[in-house]
């Protein structure tokens, strides 16, 4: 067979590889032909940068790879590169993400479609390498799109979708893809890697249009504003987020059509909810323990379902409320904390209760479970305990609104 034909076959074919969540995202960057990537070491996200620089060194990827002197610079560099028309990728974890905070706030405000991977890690202090969701959640109000994935295939696919959505001129908002530290960043799974051809069909090149920083396009970006201007500028971001629901749906539909892998409802995954009495909710890799526990509980005749949020921003409140109203009670698993919040609950529970409150339908009781902080496992017995409490709530027995599961007390 001629060499050209072999190469052509390879470009069209899909290979399967045993790779970690981090490596899956690095592969997505390669397929997306990212132009500028900045790195700074902090575990557990930095494995993605290790894989990226290997691809660059091997000549498999052509991009500017810059190691910055800190996360603040790291995120500033790619922000500016994106303003100049480069497709960019960045990332961090835990307090590294915090160190970049000034850059993180201005990125969505300037409508920079940066894709970042957050390797969710507990915030210092006391400092732990294990997973907590608070790091990514700190930007939840600022205009970042936030999505949680729970396996390496989803990480790769979502990275490609994120570029498509973020760089859509109707959106132009950054997107952070959260991968649970260690549990997803460092665990390997079989991943189908799509062909470059299909990716090219799905993902158009990044076109910054009239916002491009270039001598031929004389503009000034980010002058200081005041009370005459700020509200209107904020309202534009509001509109972009409003539009993003539709753009996300379009992107997933196209993804399913081109790659033959459909995720159904993009915003959240439903597991065994069709006939469920109660549901549990959560984000990230705790889904694995939950699904195992649910299958066990089903054998005992307990019809429990699970709703896994993918997109946290934009939050598909109406769709979620419509789904949740079918159930007698809801248990939200928060791998995060929000000290001093209403009922001292976690972040996700707050969002879920908020989603339910304005709608016209039923408002099932919502019990919040704080679990799995600092990388502590969410175990199958933990999940069974949670389901028991939610069943009690469904039967009208008062349950503490916020419960800490797996805690030494």
């Amino acid at each position: 067979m001629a060499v050209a034909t072999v190469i052509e076959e390879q470009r069209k074919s899909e290979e399967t590889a045993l790779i970690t969540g981090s490596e899956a995202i690095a592969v997505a960057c390669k397929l997306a032909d990212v132009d500028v990537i900045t790195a700074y070491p902090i575990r557990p996200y930095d494995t993605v940068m290790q894989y990226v620089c290997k691809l660059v060194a091997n000549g498999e990827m052509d991009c500017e790879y810059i190691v910055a002197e800190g996360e603040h610079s790291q995120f500033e560099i790619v922000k500016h590169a994106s303003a100049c028309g480069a497709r960019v990728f960045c990332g961090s974890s835990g307090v590294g993400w915090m160190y970049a905070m000034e850059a993180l706030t201005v990125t969505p405000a300037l409508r920079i479609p940066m894709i970042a991977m957050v390797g969710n890690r507990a915030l210092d202090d006391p400092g732990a390498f294990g997973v907590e969701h608070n790091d990514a959640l700190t930007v939840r109000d600022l205009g970042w799109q936030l999505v949680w994935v729970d396996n390496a295939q989803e990480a790769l696919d979502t990275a490609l979708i994120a570029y498509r959505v973020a760089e859509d001129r109707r959106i132009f908002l950054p997107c952070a893809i959260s991968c649970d530290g260690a549990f997803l960043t460092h665990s390997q799974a079989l991943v189908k890697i799509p062909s470059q051809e299909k990716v090219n069909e799905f993902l158009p090149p990044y076109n910054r249009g009239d916002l491009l920083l270039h001598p031929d396009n004389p503009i000034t970006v980010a002058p200081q504003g005041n009370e005459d201007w700020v509200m209107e500028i904020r309202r534009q971001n509001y509109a972009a987020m409003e539009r993003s629901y539709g753009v996300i749906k379009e992107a997933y539909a196209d993804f399913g059509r081109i790659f033959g892998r459909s995720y159904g409802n993009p915003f959240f995954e439903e597991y065994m909810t069709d006939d469920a009495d109660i549901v549990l909710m959560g984000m990230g890799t705790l889904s694995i323990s939950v699904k195992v526990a649910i299958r066990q509980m089903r054998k005992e005749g307990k019809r429990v379902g699970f709703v896994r949020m993918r997109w946290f921003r934009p939050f598909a409140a109406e769709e979620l409320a419509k789904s949740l109203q079918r159930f007698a009670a809801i248990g939200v698993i928060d791998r995060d904390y929000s000290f001093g919040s209403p009922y001292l609950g976690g972040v996700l529970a707050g969002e879920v209760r908020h989603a339910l409150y304005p709608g016209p339908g039923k408002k099932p009781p919502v019990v919040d479970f704080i679990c799995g902080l600092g990388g502590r496992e969410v175990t199958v017995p933990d999940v069974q305990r949670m389901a028991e409490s939610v069943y009690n709530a469904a039967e009208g027995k008062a349950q503490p609104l916020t419960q800490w599961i797996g805690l030494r007390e």
Partner: protein
Amino acid sequence: MSILKGTVSFSGLWVYKDDHTDVRILGAIAKILPDLFSLQSVQKAIVSEWKDELKATSAAKSYERTTSITVQPNQGNPETPYKFDLPKWHEMGEGIAIPSIPAGRNMEDPVSHAHGGFQPDRNPTFKKFSTRTMRPVVNFDTCIKCTLCWLQCPDSCFDVTPEGLYDANMQACCGCGVCEAVCPVKECVTMVNETEFSDNSSQWEDWRKDKDAYKTWLEDKIKSHPERSHGFRYRGQYEEQIPEMLEIAREK
């Protein structure tokens, strides 16, 4: 349980990839789980990935040398492993602040009952000795009291005896081996595999009670059991050892 005997990697950390641990494990897995993959496919993969026939040979050797025994539940070491009782959230101090270790006390000579020296109090809950794989044995007769072992010990494990000797406290020692490396006197401090010992008794007290018996015990420990579990006795030992290891691997 499958066992593959071999030289351990530096400090147990597998820093040097050229010691063939990776391919030896592959060879062992091929022996234990032949349904997963064969030795031939392992060797083929090795040669195609690293272009190194010697690595393929190492895999084959490990395949031959791996032995397996069946272990029943509850078979084996009957000792209860050391358990930490972790405190409840309300039993812990606030502010992620750890109280410092209280000072210490004099030591008492078991024979003369003289008091002196200094034995620091040690952390009552966190016992690093539970993961020790080797421990120092000290020759108190040849010690020149240079103080280097006491100074350099990263965990301040050395108790100062009333006569100014240094007794490695086995409650605190985690077996890093720095003391042996810095001691200037030959065979004054020697790291010996932890399996040779069954308690944390004080070597100095044993020496004080019966110097001859201690000397015999010490010489026995050093002579027949010189193997460190990890690390090196002196600088340059790795450079000396690796050609020997490669020679052994090359032997047909």
